[in-house]
């Protein structure tokens, strides 16, 4: 087995992408994801790949669009304000059925906001990544090892369903170091992409990568076809981790960094004999509705914990079909909630 190494989340994301066959990275510096770009700048020349520092996030995402059109695995990374700028390209890639990976190492917002960790881009990632009817695959790692594992899964899913995928991380996960085991490079065969705009060599009709359809019926048909794919994804790609849920009276729902805090609080509660569990969504789109709905049949109440003003809480309510009360606790602006704060909220709800 490969050696365990200590890596920063940002660097682990980069190395994992290279090992997943991504040799084309286009970025623009922004805290707290800059180590990712710096790592790529160092590593890409060693693997014969492309690292390019674009003039803006707009340019970077459109370079990704170009490289993805050519049929290669391409990615960009940024943090919240930069991802807003990438929204244009993400919408065009969704409308052109292009696979690519976008990484958001979230920081506090809105506006320039701050640079400390946040989860306030949940809505942007899952619902409003750009204009038009579309979804992107959203993966939410909560450890550095999971960042490594999900990069590869995200590229595979993006290729499989021909759509953009996003890793929604945050400044805490990006900056922290944990031990990781990296996969060997080149374990996977590249996916055939007969649709790519890579030169027809006078052997096939020309391929056109496009999102413009001036006939409403044609555009509707294409969107409907895409939503058929989304249905398959919602049925087969939901992922969540359940922790001590079986006998729980109260279940905390949290993803990413806040799930780590929540887990500490759940452990503390269990030490005190309280029946508390954790459901941790790993995919945010598709949202793991099935796991939550199943838990709602035997759990009394839920508490979502987020580093935002409560952007996921409505999805949890919809998933449990409002059969049980779903409460919310969060900190925002770059504040990481403490396990003690979460435990306090758990205690309050258990006493209600």
């Amino acid at each position, binding site marked *: 087995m490969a050696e365990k190494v*200590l890596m920063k989340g940002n660097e682990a994301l980069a190395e994992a992408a290279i090992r997943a066959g991504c040799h084309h990275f286009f970025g623009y510096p922004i805290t707290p994801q800059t180590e990712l770009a710096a790592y790529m700048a160092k590593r890409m020349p060693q693997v014969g790949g492309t690292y390019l520092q674009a003039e803006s996030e707009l340019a970077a995402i459109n370079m990704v669009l170009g490289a993805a059109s050519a049929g290669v695995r391409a990615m960009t990374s940024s943090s919240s304000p930069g991802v807003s700028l990438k929204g244009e390209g993400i919408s065009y890639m969704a409308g052109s059925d292009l696979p690519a990976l976008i990484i958001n190492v979230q920081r506090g917002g809105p506006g320039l906001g701050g*640079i400390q960790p946040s989860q306030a881009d949940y809505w942007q990632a899952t619902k409003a990544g750009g204009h038009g009817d579309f979804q992107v695959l959203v993966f939410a790692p909560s450890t550095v090892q999971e960042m490594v594992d999900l990069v590869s899964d995200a590229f595979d899913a993006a290729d499989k369903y021909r759509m953009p995928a996003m890793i929604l991380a945050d400044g805490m996960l990006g900056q*922290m*170091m*944990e031990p990781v085991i990296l996969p060997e490079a080149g374990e996977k065969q590249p996916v055939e992409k007969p649709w790519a705009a890579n030169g027809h060599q006078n052997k096939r009709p020309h391929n056109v990568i496009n999102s413009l359809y001036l006939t409403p019926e044609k555009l509707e048909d294409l969107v409907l076809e895409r939503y058929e794919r989304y249905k398959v994804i919602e049925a087969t790609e939901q992922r969540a981790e359940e922790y001590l849920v079986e006998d729980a009276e109260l279940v905390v729902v949290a993803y990413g960094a806040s799930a*780590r*805090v929540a887990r*500490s*609080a759940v452990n503390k509660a269990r030490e005190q004999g309280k029946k508390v569990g954790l459901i941790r969504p790993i995919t945010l789109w598709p949202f793991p509705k099935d796991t939550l709905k199943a838990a709602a049949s035997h759990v009394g109440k839920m508490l979502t914990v987020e580093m935002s003003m409560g952007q996921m809480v409505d999805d949890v309510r919809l998933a449990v079909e409002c059969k049980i009360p779903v409460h919310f606790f969060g900190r925002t602006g770059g504040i990481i909630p*403490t396990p003690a704060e979460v435990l306090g909220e758990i205690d309050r709800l258990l006493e209600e």
Partner: protein
Amino acid sequence: MKDLNIVFAGFGGQGVLFAGKVTAYAGLLSGKELSWLPSYGPEMRGGTANCSVCVSDAPIGSPLVTAPNVLVAMNLPSLDKFIDAVEPGGVVLIDSTLIDKKVERDDVTVYYLPATALSEEKGLRGLANMILIGKLFAAVCCGEGERAFCSWETLDRALQKCVPARKAEMLAYNRQAIQLGATL
């Protein structure tokens, strides 16, 4: 082992992040669960810098240490910021060259070490952090206590992992500093 939650704090350039990294690597090489989380901000040099290191037998939940059981303080603002948060029974290591103040709490064990002065005296300029690491491992990580997790040999391997190849000549100085700290 009992969970070890350390805050290393000082100003940028003192090597607090590096000290944390050496400790984290020692945890890794000892087969423990661990995390290392830096503070980050716009200051590149001279501003406050700190990092949280957790070492445990169980997976790490929140990597942000808000109630450390070990505090390594390398300047006064850091001591002032974190001293009240240290858990009762915790250990506090202070660079007394830069901190001219005594801890008023009597429920923590405090070591006052003139690390910066010693580093300059012994030709180990810039390695006050490693002198403190030597003491940290002697008192806690390699000791007999309930938070011990590491051997001296493992710490040395961790050091080798952390000193970059282009600064290989620094390895011997780091070792000297650790030995010096361990015997204080």
